[in-house]
């Protein structure tokens, strides 16, 4: 019998009669009735305030006052019935639950808003044409994104080629090799994951673009800097989950360290490493700030990432959104919608791959 079951059995109902223990965590019919009544009466009170007594308006104000009134009424009711301690517990429980669930509301609002704004002008031609022949006065339906999609794919692809081997090797160093740098390195990897993206862009501008030219490759370098700590951290976490028994078995059979790492540790953590890579890509695919000073942006197709300005999804959306033409701003939403679709696909893939790792263990 679980501890919870024992406690519930001992506790019975939640009334504080002397000598009869109450269960602090039980939530029985009476508690539900009190909760529903508190919600109802606070709603009624707020409605009364808003429509009959005070000249207030606005949905945000209504929600805020409703929540505040609910907290006061609920606290008073529970305090009257079960005492101060229980009342405080219920109060904090309500605040924590409501706030935690409320965090997701802006996300949902954002997704709905971007979809509503972007979907209406998204045509299939977006994926097959470029912006070369589209001017600010062309109709919004005429929006081409091919040059940006190609640019993003090339830039993120090259960034992956640079950052993934470095990141995975760093994770191996942190968890398998365990050299002297281990402790400071872990701190600096964490710190680097917070490096502002604009600083990475400025660095590549000073380091590369000033000596060469704006190019997709320069953007890849900046994105790789941002991707490296994400890949490292995520890979390290999954490598740490590989059971030590597997490593020891491999070493005991006489295989050297590098074979143990490459043939036992990494394959065991395979789906976790894939998750790490996907998380890294999702981290940089929407980065705009470093692209301003590296890829620069272009309305025409540039297939060569090593020379000349190149477009990218977030960069094009940013530049269009800052335009003074209404049609261009509407175009920016089309770009934004396609961009968030890409991010969502990556995110779902990463979750799915992480879920496979957990399922197997």
């Amino acid at each position: 019998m679980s501890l919870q079951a024992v406690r519930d059995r001992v506790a019975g109902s939640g009334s504080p009669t002397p000598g009869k223990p109450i269960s602090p965590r039980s939530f029985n019919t009476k508690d539900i009735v009190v909760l529903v009544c508190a919600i109802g009466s606070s709603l009624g009170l707020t409605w009364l305030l808003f429509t009959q007594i005070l000249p207030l308006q606005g949905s945000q104000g209504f929600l805020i006052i409703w929540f505040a009134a609910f907290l006061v009424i609920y606290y008073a009711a529970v305090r009257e019935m079960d005492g101060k301690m229980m009342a405080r517990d219920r109060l904090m429980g309500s605040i924590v639950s409501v706030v935690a669930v409320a965090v997701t509301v802006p996300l949902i609002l954002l997704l709905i808003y971007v979809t509503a704004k972007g979907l209406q002008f998204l045509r299939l031609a977006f994926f097959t044409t470029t912006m070369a022949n589209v001017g600010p006065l062309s109709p919004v339906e005429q929006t081409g994104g091919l040059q940006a999609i190609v640019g993003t794919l090339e830039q993120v692809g090259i960034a992956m080629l640079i950052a993934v081997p470095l990141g995975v090797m760093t994770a191996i160093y942190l968890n398998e090799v365990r050299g002297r740098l281990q402790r400071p390195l872990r701190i600096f990897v964490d710190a680097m994951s917070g490096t502002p993206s604009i600083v990475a862009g400025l660095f590549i501008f000073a380091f590369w673009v000033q000596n060469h030219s704006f190019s997709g490759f320069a953007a890849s370098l900046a994105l790789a800097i941002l991707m490296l700590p994400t890949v490292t951290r995520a890979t390290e976490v999954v490598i740490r989950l590989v059971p030590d028994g597997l490593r020891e078995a491999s070493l005991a059979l006489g295989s050297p360290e590098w074979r143990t790492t490459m043939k036992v540790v990494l394959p065991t953590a395979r789906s976790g490493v894939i998750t790490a890579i996907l998380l890294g890509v999702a981290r940089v695919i929407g980065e705009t700030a470093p692209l301003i000073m590296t890829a620069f942006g272009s309305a025409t197709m540039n297939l060569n990432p090593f020379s000349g300005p190149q477009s990218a999804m977030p960069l094009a959306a940013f530049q269009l959104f800052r335009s003074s033409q209404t049609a261009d701003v509407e175009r920016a939403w089309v770009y934004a919608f396609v961009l968030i679709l890409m991010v969502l696909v990556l995110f779902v893939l990463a979750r799915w791959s992480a879920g496979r790792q957990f399922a197997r263990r």
Partner: protein
Amino acid sequence: MPTLGVNAVAVNRSTFPCTALARSCSVHFRSPDFLREVATRVTTVGIFQEGTSAVATVLDGGGPSGAPPKPRQIVQIRTRADRVFRGLATGASSSTLILLFLIGLFLLIKALPALKCAGLNFLTTSEWNPPDRGTCETFGVAALMYWTVVIAVIAMVIAVPVSIAAALFITEYAPRWIRRPLTSLIDLLAAVPSLLYGMWGAGFLAARTVGITEWLANHLGFIPFFKPTNAYPIYGPSAFVAGLVVSLMVVPIVTSVIREVFSQVPPGEKEGALALGGTRWGMIRAVVLPFGRGGIIGGSMLGLGRALGETIAILLIISQIYYIRANFIEAGANSIAAHIANAFGEANGVALSALLAAGLVLFGVTLLVNVGAAAIINRSRSGAGVEI
């Protein structure tokens, strides 16, 4: 298996690097006498270099050595491939440190012309009119830094309590089936690009906060932060809205750090608090929050680092101003990163160098905050910073 290793180490430790595990090893002896002594104790000794060097294949141990047995010294001998592998991993991992160093170095070199020109005034001047349209005394990061900090502080004031609540809900309150979807949704908040937050903030949120900010100005106008600066104040593209949006971007990072620490609270102590008759909130206050203090502080600092460096979202939401004022709910704000992104296109010469100098300041500040945060988080992760 009594071996050459054990005995010989007892006789002459310093000249005998082989371990007992090695079935064959090369030994460099100090004197022919010592070699002879060893040779009497092992079955097979192949001598390759006369007098001073030998390869001994150990099949059986010799007689008693006389000396008391000492703990065997384990020396790990790696193959060449392993040494190369370790070297590669070390090299790859030091790339992180080298990169951080290079970023600072390059920004400093490129920022020198502007810093030489402005001197210490760079940190105290508010306006931004570098030499292409001003003089050496007319540009600095004071106002930029002020607004960067204001936006970050607004974001943290909102994000930290919300993150603690979200982490508590996920670890303590939520039924099991709701935990994973909720965690996914909060992580998805982190995956949404900064650009989209900016576009949403400018297109949707800014207009919908006008009511609240107007109410604050009308009813709490005696507080300097809310006091209207002119007769017809404009609300919307303000530091308040920017802070609100940045708080959304910071919440998932802070939440994930706090959640990780909360989930490591010893279950025995939680059960103990509940068994003593504590309510759930009593248990959280007595056990979970004190245990998670390091994680809360570290996570908040990590979030602060992110908030300070946020660029595009802020740039799209605010209308830029280059002076310091207490009111943060009216239109007008700024940030170092947003300013760099905005002014970059037209800048060259000393003006460009000035932007790199601003970037250097931003890099320095965020690096300090982030290293502090990472150090605190690592300590609370390993449990060293927590008294149990």
